[in-house]
């Protein structure tokens, strides 16, 4: 199903909600993320997600590592030898926190940290949803993708299907878990816990159309301020997953943040796969029949 800018994708409508609220989503503006991890904690608390213990990854200040069954929001910390640019002329106009920070911790090198809160992308064309053999994964009226935990049988098919490495299996119960866009809060008119807890509005929640406009303006603002590396990720409705319900403003290439540069919904090639499966099955039948040719009866 092709989607164009003129005709925005309507995953909730396509999933059988004739009258549904506008598609809701996240715009995560990593240029104002301070790495406080309030989102991770708020998500854990609201969704009653089990702790993973106190492990140190040893690779950076990121001791969570990545998204998984027990981590539905994950703050990445990227340490780079790159000059600190001034990413936000609109905030803290009377205080130059970057000069302050440089004065306090300067090592004489050009060094910067990128921080970014990652989450399930709630793809327009969602591979996890497509491949789920039980119908346990479903599309909500808000356009998000949610796992019904009482139907999930733990087959784990959604996990390698996700091109972003989001959904994962919880070892204790064998079932798959991921961000629900706080479906239980949305129904009551509340915003998701992570967005509510974010102190810098790095995580913004709202109707996707509105967020995309806001994000476009923000990128222009940053470009004008000289932050040439600012770019949107997952906002393009013509990309390999039909655009994401959760998209990002990044300050470097996606792979620097552990994100795939050009993800594609795995089921895009499925019609061709089924044709090759049919061809191969026919080849087996024909080949075996041919194996009996000239071998005679009895």
């Amino acid at each position: 199903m092709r989607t164009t800018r003129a005709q925005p994708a309507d995953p909730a409508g396509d999933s059988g909600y004739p009258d549904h609220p506008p598609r809701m989503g996240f715009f995560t503006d990593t240029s104002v993320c301070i790495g406080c991890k309030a989102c991770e904690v708020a998500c854990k608390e609201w969704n009653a997600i089990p702790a993973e213990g106190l492990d140190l990854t040893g690779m950076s200040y990121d001791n969570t590592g990545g998204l998984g069954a027990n981590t539905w929001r994950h703050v990445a910390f990227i340490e780079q030898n790159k000059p600190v640019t001034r990413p936000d002329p609109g905030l803290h106009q009377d205080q130059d926190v970057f000069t302050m920070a440089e004065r306090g911790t300067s090592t004489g090198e050009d060094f910067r940290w990128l921080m970014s809160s990652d989450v399930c992308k709630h793809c327009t064309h969602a591979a996890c949803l497509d491949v789920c053999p039980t119908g346990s994964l479903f599309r909500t009226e808000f356009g998000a993708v949610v796992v019904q935990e009482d139907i999930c049988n733990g087959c784990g098919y959604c996990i390698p299907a996700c091109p972003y490495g989001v959904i994962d299996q919880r070892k204790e119960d064998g079932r798959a878990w991921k961000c629900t866009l706080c479906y239980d809060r949305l129904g009551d008119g509340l915003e998701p816990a992570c967005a509510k807890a974010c102190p810098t509005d790095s995580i913004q929640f709202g109707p996707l159309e509105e967020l995309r406009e806001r994000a476009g303006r923000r990128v222009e603002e940053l470009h004008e301020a000289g932050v040439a590396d600012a770019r949107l990720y997952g906002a393009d409705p013509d990309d390999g997953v039909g655009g994401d319900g959760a998209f990002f403003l990044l300050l470097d290439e996606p792979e620097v943040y552990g994100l795939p540069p050009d993800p594609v919904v795995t089921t895009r090639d499925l019609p061709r796969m089924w044709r090759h499966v049919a061809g191969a099955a026919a080849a087996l039948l024909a080949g075996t029949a041919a194996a009996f040719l000239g071998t005679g009866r009895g």
Partner: protein
Amino acid sequence: MAGRRGGEQPVVPDTEFTSYYGTPVLNPPVWKTPDIPGYLFLGGLAGASSVLAAGYHRAGRHGVATVAKTGALGAVTLSVGALVHDLGRPERFLNMLRVFKPSSPMNIGSWILTGYGPLAGVSALSAVSGKLPRIGAAATAGAALTGPALAAYTAALLSDTAVPAWHEGHRELPYLFVGSGAVAAAGLGLLAAPARAVAPARNLAVAGTALELAAFRRMERRLGMVAEPYRGGGAGRLVRAGDALSVAGVACAALGRRSRLLRGLGGAALLAASACTKWGVFKAGQASAADPKYTVIPQRQRIRAEEP
């Protein structure tokens, strides 16, 4: 290479690409070994054996046919056992059948198993007991028609994921898988067939090996660097062992016209070859998911190719 800083050794030292401390982009498949590679092998063995059994049944070679039929039933029973064992919540296997979903190869596979399994069962039970020959013949034909679907669909099961070595190989894997299934079924046939009836199993071994090898070579050429996991590490050793065993099995089958021992060795080699190939494909996929370069580099190349 800024994303690589922070103390951890990059997984791949030579290729230029950035990643988040060398951590995988994808969450790796949680499917267990030997459950799922075993399932792939047994499904191929069962499906192709049912086709071979129908051929022997039609040719009036009931001894070999019965072995192939019972082999198919045994293999499909074990494969369902492996599948159920792999599920975290085996009591929920029936949830697979609450929907019919062509976008999910696993769901379609559950329906194929549901259709094929009882046919293979009736076919084998009728052959062993000698009762209800007409129903047994009909079930034999039914199993021969649904068996190829069982042998082939597992390729789509793997390909319809974001795992680079599986997804990118989606054109060749079905042919590779039915070739491997034919090799296994031919192996079982060689073990069972008397000298006079061995020709069809031997022909199938040759055809299956040729198809499997051709599909593999073609896939390797087309995939470029994404094919590396099929050549290196434990997966590469298994794939090479599979190739060598199938060629050795075919040779034994060709030379073993008079020698029952040689035919038996050939049959065992072919069965082992099929298992090695399926295990190798499974492991190669896991390796390609664990290394971010197989996700990042092809996608980067795709973006560059699309840029004006």
